[in-house]
C-alpha cells in the first residue's frame, strides 16, 4: 500500500480577514492539515475565476477561496462580487466535470482561526474522499503523447517559418 493520498489545495485568501485568520490560527498554534497552500490577494474581490481554473489546470486537487464576512469587507463589498462569481463558477465547474467539493468560497474573519482550521479540515477530508483530481484526464494523454513524439526535426521546421527571411 502506498502512502495515503495527500491532496494539494490552493487557498486564495484576502489580506485583511482570511489571511489574517490563517495567521491567527498559526499564532494560536492551532494545528490543521498541511494541504492548503496559500496565495494572498488584497481582497476576495480580486479573485478572477481564471485563478481557480488555473489551479485545477496545474493539478490542484481543490481550491479554497476565502474572504471577509459579508458586510465586513475591508473594501466594502469586494466579497459580494466574489460571491457573484462563485455562484456562476460553481455551475460552470460542475459542467466541466469538477466535483463541487473541490471548490469552496468561505468567509473567515481575522479572529476566526478556529473557523479557518475547520474549513481547511472539512475541505481536505472531502477532497481526500474524492481522490486526486485527474490530470491529465484521458483525452489529454493524446496531446501529451503527441508532444513527446514530436521529433526535434519537426520542431525545427515548425520554428523555422517566417516570410522573406
Amino acid at each position, binding site marked *: 500500500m502506498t502512502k495515503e493520498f*495527500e491532496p*494539494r489545495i*490552493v487557498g486564495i485568501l484576502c*489580506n485583511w480577514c482570511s*489571511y*489574517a485568520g*490563517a*495567521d491567527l*490560527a*498559526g*499564532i494560536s*498554534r*492551532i*494545528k*490543521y492539515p*498541511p494541504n492548503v*497552500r*496559500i*496565495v*494572498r*490577494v*488584497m*481582497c476576495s*474581490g*480580486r*479573485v*478572477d475565476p*481564471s*485563478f481557480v481554473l*488555473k*489551479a485545477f489546470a*496545474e*493539478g*490542484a486537487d481543490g481550491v479554497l477561496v476565502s474572504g471577509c464576512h459579508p458586510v465586513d469587507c*475591508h*473594501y*466594502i*463589498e*469586494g466579497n459580494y*462580487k*466574489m460571491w457573484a*462569481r462563485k455562484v456562476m463558477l460553481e455551475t460552470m465547474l460542475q459542467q466541466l466535470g469538477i466535483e463541487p467539493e473541490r471548490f469552496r468560497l468561505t468567509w473567515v474573519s481575522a479572529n476566526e482561526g478556529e473557523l479557518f*482550521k475547520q474549513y481547511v479540515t472539512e475541505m481536505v477530508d472531502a477532497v481526500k474522499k474524492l481522490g486526486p483530481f485527474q490530470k491529465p484526464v484521458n483525452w489529454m494523454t493524446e496531446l501529451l503523447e503527441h508532444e513527446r513524439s514530436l521529433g526535434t526535426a519537426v520542431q525545427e521546421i515548425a520554428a523555422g517559418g517566417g516570410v522573406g527571411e
Partner: protein
Amino acid sequence: MSEEIKIGVYVCHCGSNIADKVDCAAVAEFASKLPNVTVARDFQYMCADPGQELIRKDIKEQGINRVVVASCSPRMHEPTFRKVCESVGLNGYFFEMANIREHVSWCTEDREAATEKAKALVAAAVARVPLQEPLYERYADMNDRVLVIGGGIAGIEAALKVSGGNKEVVIVEKEPSIGGTMAKLDKTFPTLDCSACILTPKMVECAQRDNVKLYTYSEVEKVDGYVGNFTVTIRKKARSVDLDKCTGCGLCITKCPTKDIPHEWEENLTTRTAIFTPFPQAVPNKPVIDRENCRYFTTGKCGICAKVCPTDAVDFEQEDELVTEDFGAIIVATGFELFDPSVGPQWGFGKFDNVITSLQFERMVNASGPTKGKVLLKNGEEPKSIAILHCIGSRDENYHEYCSRFCCTAALKLAHLAKEKTNGDVYSFYIDMRTFGKGYEEFYNRIMSEGIHFIRGKGTEVVERKGQLLVRTEDTLLGKYREVPVDMVVLMAACQPGQDTEKLAQTLAIQRSADGFFLEAHPKLEPLKTATDGIFLCGACQGPKDIPDSVAQGAGAASEALSLISAGKVKISPIVARCDEDKCGGCMICINLCPYTAISYDEEKKVAVVNEAKCKGCGTCSGSCPTGAMTNTNFTDEQIMTQIEGVLAV
C-alpha cells in the same frame, strides 16, 4: 527586461519557531536549485540586524536584484524587508515574502509535511518575484480647508474646532439658518438647561469668526476629486434677499400680506409670512422669501417687502448661484429627521387634533414658541391629562428596527415639563426605559419622584370614544389590558435618516447602513471615518444621537480632519489598479464595481481611467476585467497565476 534576474532567498529559523518544524537548511538547499536563484541561505533571525545585513550585503556584492524572505507573515515584516531593500537602492517591490511560520511551522504537526509545504511556498515566491515591477509610493498635495455639511450642533461644533486650529472652514446648511434640531428644543436633558442659551452663543460665534464661512439656504451639488483635493460645487439657493444689504430689521416681515403659511420650523403649530426668518435667534438673522407662497412670485403683484425695505435688500431677480470651493477634508453632519407617525393610523396622528409629536410638544413648551410656553389643546384649553407614547416607529420592524436612543430620556424631560406646566396627570407608556447616559438614570429617578404614571406597555392604539381620547395598552407588569382616557397624546417619534441622505451618499460616494444612516468605516475603531478617505461623519446622520454625543462627535470629526490636513501631503499606496488603454474595450464593467468611484470613463478615448489617489488597490476591478486591461499592481494576473503554478510545483 534585459537585466539578468538574480534572486536571493533567505530562510529564517525564527529561533526555534520555524526551525523546530521546518528543515530550514533543506528548504534553502531546495531553493538554491530553483531557476534564477543566485544565493539561498538560512539564518537564525532574518528580521534582526545581522539578518538584514545579510540581504544588504548580497544585494551589494552579488548583484542580487530580487529578494525572497521565507519567515513570518507579510502582515508582520513585509515593510521591514522592503525598507532593507530600499536602503541599498533596490525597489521595495522587488521583494516577496513566503509565510512559513504562521502558515507552516505553527500550524503543522508533521515536520516532513511542514518542510514540504515550506518548499512549495518558497517555490511560489521565487516563481513570482521575477515578474514583480518596481513601484513607488507617491504623495499628493493637501488642501487645508475643511467643508462641514450641515449646521446643526454637531456641524457647528466641528466647524468651531477646525477654525480653532487656525484652518479655514465652510459650513453648508440647507435651511435659511444654522442651528438644526437643537434650536427647536426647549430644555435639554438631563440638566434641564435651556437649549437656546447654550446653543445660540455657538451659532453667533460661527457667524463672527473670520475663518468660518457660512453658506445657509445652500446645498452641496457635486463633489469631485479625492482626499486632500476635493472640489465641491455648492448651490446657493436664491434667497431673494441680499445678505450684504439686509440689516435684519424685520420691517418686511411685519408688512408681508401673506400670513397663513404653515410654519415648518414651528412644526406647523402656527403660521408665518412669505418673507420670514425661521426663528428670532436665526444666524444669519436675515429673512428669506418662500417663493412658492410669495404673492410676487405666484401672481406677479405685491412686492410690498421691496417697497418697505429701507436698504433695498429685497431682490426678486436673484437666481440660484453655483459656487465652487476646494477642500482637503469633508465633515458630514446632516443630522436626522423625525418619523412621520401618520404612517401608522393606529396612533391617530393627523386624525385627532390633540395627538402631537414630541417636537411639536417641544415647541409648545418653549417660551418663544407658538403658545408662548403654554401646553394647550386645539380648543385653547389646558389638558388635564397627557399621555406620552414611547417607541413610535422605533424598535418596530414595521418602521425602524433600531432604537432611537434619545427618546426615552427626552420623554422623561417632556413628562417633567408637562407635569410642571399643567400639573395634570401625565402617563408615560414605555417598552423599556433606556436611560444610558451620564446622569440620565438619576434624571429618571428624579422624574419618577414627580408622580408621573409610568405604564410598562407600548401605547398600541389611540382611539376616540364619545369625544374622549383613549390610549389602549397592556400594563404588562400587571398583565392587564388598560384603556387610559387622556386629553392629549404626545408621540415620541423615531429618529430617522433625512430624506436627502441617499442623494448625498451618492454625491459623496459614501455608504449607508441598512437602516439608512451613513455608514462609518468601523463601528468601534473608526466611528467618525467613512470608507472614503477624507470624508468624516458626526452627529445623528450616522445614527440616533443626543446632544452630548453629537457634540463629542463634532469635536472628534474636527480632530480627524485637522489631523489629516495638518500632514500637508496625502500618501498614495503604490498598490493600485492601472488600466492599459490599448487593451481596454471600454465595456465599463469596472466602473460600477469600484466602491470608491476611483474609475471613470474617458468619453473621448472610450477607456476606463483610474484615479490612483482614490483607488485603494483591492483589485476587484481587475478580478472582473474581461480584457485583462485592468491590472492590480503587485497582484497582476500573471503574478498570481505564476504563484499558483509555484505552490503546485512541489
